[in-house]
């Protein structure tokens, strides 16, 4: 099946790890900061990819779980002085439970309805956070969350130390995600993406799989949220806006939905672009807006699609008989509500 692909992947993976470690020693502090953000958003994008790329369920409310976990951990640490590990665990629990609650409301929908409902749930969660001033700090957010001092040998207060910590956690999560994706469960998700009706008559409880995928995805998004809040020391309603949800979706698409590493590449690209460009222009938001439009107009199958196209051209079969990865679901998906 994917054996040869896996074998080819090992050297690449090795190179990635070496490069990731080199960042700590070689890169200037500014870039180490960006690298932490790249890790956080890579994890977030990969968590969304489980839904979008594998299960074919496009969520536009993913920031809710990221933000809820960040807020929960931040509030516990800031207001109640809860130490890192319990606060982090609670943050992840809150984000995951929110996913478990919302999952009940969306797991029966597909296509554009799924997108709309997740969007609405995400937005309402954002509005709630914005107005709940006494708890969340409202418009001002929650500043002053400090990084913990763990027994890891390198103080996390130093961004290089925190980078290593984030690398470790993100690495564990990515390994877990790789297992999920390769497992019978992960294959079932792809089956659901391709044909929910066939999966049902084969005997798969499709609702349960969609629900489980939603919760698992919320779990990894929550881990990313906790990593983010301790890195950033600050969380605000901006972290759970539609802008974040959409940007994560864009990362997945730029990287190529349904490819395992693509979303991480998309996330890294966007994080670096955003920070480098916003240091030269005030109009970063417009650039991002244009980027959305350009991506849709010119490369809807993302980086992974680009790679596939180049490979095919090299192999001398430029014509594409099979659609490139599951990027842009079509109207066929809209018929809506399964059981």
């Amino acid at each position, binding site marked *: 099946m994917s054996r040869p692909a896996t074998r080819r992947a090992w050297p690449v993976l090795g190179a990635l790890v070496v490069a990731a470690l080199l960042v700590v020693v070689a890169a200037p502090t500014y870039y180490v900061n960006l690298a932490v953000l790249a890790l956080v958003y890579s994890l977030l994008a990969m968590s969304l990819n489980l839904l979008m790329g594998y299960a074919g369920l496009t969520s536009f409310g993913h920031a809710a779980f990221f933000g809820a976990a960040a807020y929960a951990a931040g509030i516990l640490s800031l207001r109640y002085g809860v130490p890192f590990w319990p606060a982090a665990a609670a943050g992840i629990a809150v984000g995951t439970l929110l996913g478990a609650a919302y999952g009940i409301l969306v797991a029966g929908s597909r296509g554009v309805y799924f997108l709309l409902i997740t969007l609405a749930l995400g937005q309402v969660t954002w509005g709630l956070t914005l107005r709940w001033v006494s708890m969340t700090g409202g418009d001002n957010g929650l500043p002053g969350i400090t990084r913990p001092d763990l027994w890891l040998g390198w103080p996390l207060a130093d961004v290089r130390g925190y980078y290593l910590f984030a690398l470790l956690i993100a690495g564990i999560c990515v390994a877990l995600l790789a*297992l999920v994706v390769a497992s019978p*469960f*992960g*294959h*079932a998700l792809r089956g659901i993406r391709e044909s929910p009706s*066939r999966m*049902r*008559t084969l005997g798969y409880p499709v609702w349960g799989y969609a629900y489980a995928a939603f919760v698992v995805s919320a779990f990894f998004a929550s881990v990313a949220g906790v990593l983010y809040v301790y890195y950033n020391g600050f969380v605000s309603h901006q972290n759970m806006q539609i802008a974040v949800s959409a940007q994560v979706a864009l990362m997945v698409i730029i990287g190529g939905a349904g490819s395992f590493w693509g979303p991480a590449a998309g996330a890294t690209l966007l994080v670096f672009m955003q920070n480098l460009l916003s240091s030269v222009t005030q109009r970063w938001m417009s650039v991002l807006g244009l980027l959305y439009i350009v991506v849709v107009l010119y490369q809807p199958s993302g980086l992974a699609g680009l790679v596939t196209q180049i490979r095919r051209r090299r192999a001398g079969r430029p014509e594409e008989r099979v659609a490139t990865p599951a990027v842009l679901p079509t109207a066929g998906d809209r018929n809506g509500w399964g*059981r």
Partner: protein
Amino acid sequence: MSIRLRLERVARRFGGLQAVVDFSLTASAGERIAIIGPNGAGKTTLFNLISGELAPTGGRIELLGRDVTRMPPHRRAALGLGRTYQLTNLFPRLSVLENTLLAVVALRPMRYVAWWPLAAYRDPLDRAQALLAPLGLWERRDDPVAELSYGEQRQVEIALAMAPGPTVLLLDEPTSGLSAAETRIVHALLQGLPRTITVLLIEHDMGVAFDLADRMVVMHQGRILAEDTPEAVRRNPRVQEIYLGSA
């Protein structure tokens, strides 16, 4: 002989259209029943009612002695019901092997495993090979199923339905759109199905239908027009007039 499937006055309306009307039928273990009828007779709708993809607007469906009228499709499958589709319904971007493996593990407890690679399980792989090799598709196991020829896809369609080991099998026009040569292959494939399986077969190819069926049901405008042995149906003048005449 024990009864595997029992339909009692099953009905389905679409707005003002009566697609299936007061349809009653029983199928015993190992029986092979062909359902024929002109386009729009309600045959596919009937299958959708049996498989649970559509809810009946009236009547009662029993599978292996259990009332399944309101049971969702995946639980009917767990009882031993399998089906194929008239319009090929596979997982187009997954490989032939992945398609087959999904079907092979569909009813095994390991389908819930989320922490161990599917590829690491030996037994499903062997079963997939046993299913694909006779079709000559084992060599093509890594190709996306969308890249197979139409005829090959129709064979995978049947392989998927067979993979979980159903006791009642619904086949919706397995030979539709196939060339004469491809039809012969599928015909042979169906002949080779274990005699323990109860088969309901919708078929427009009369050669295939008459050869495989123990009993034939002729459907017209949602109702049973005739139900008899193949020879009797062949001689039935009303069938000749309404079905064969209009086909």
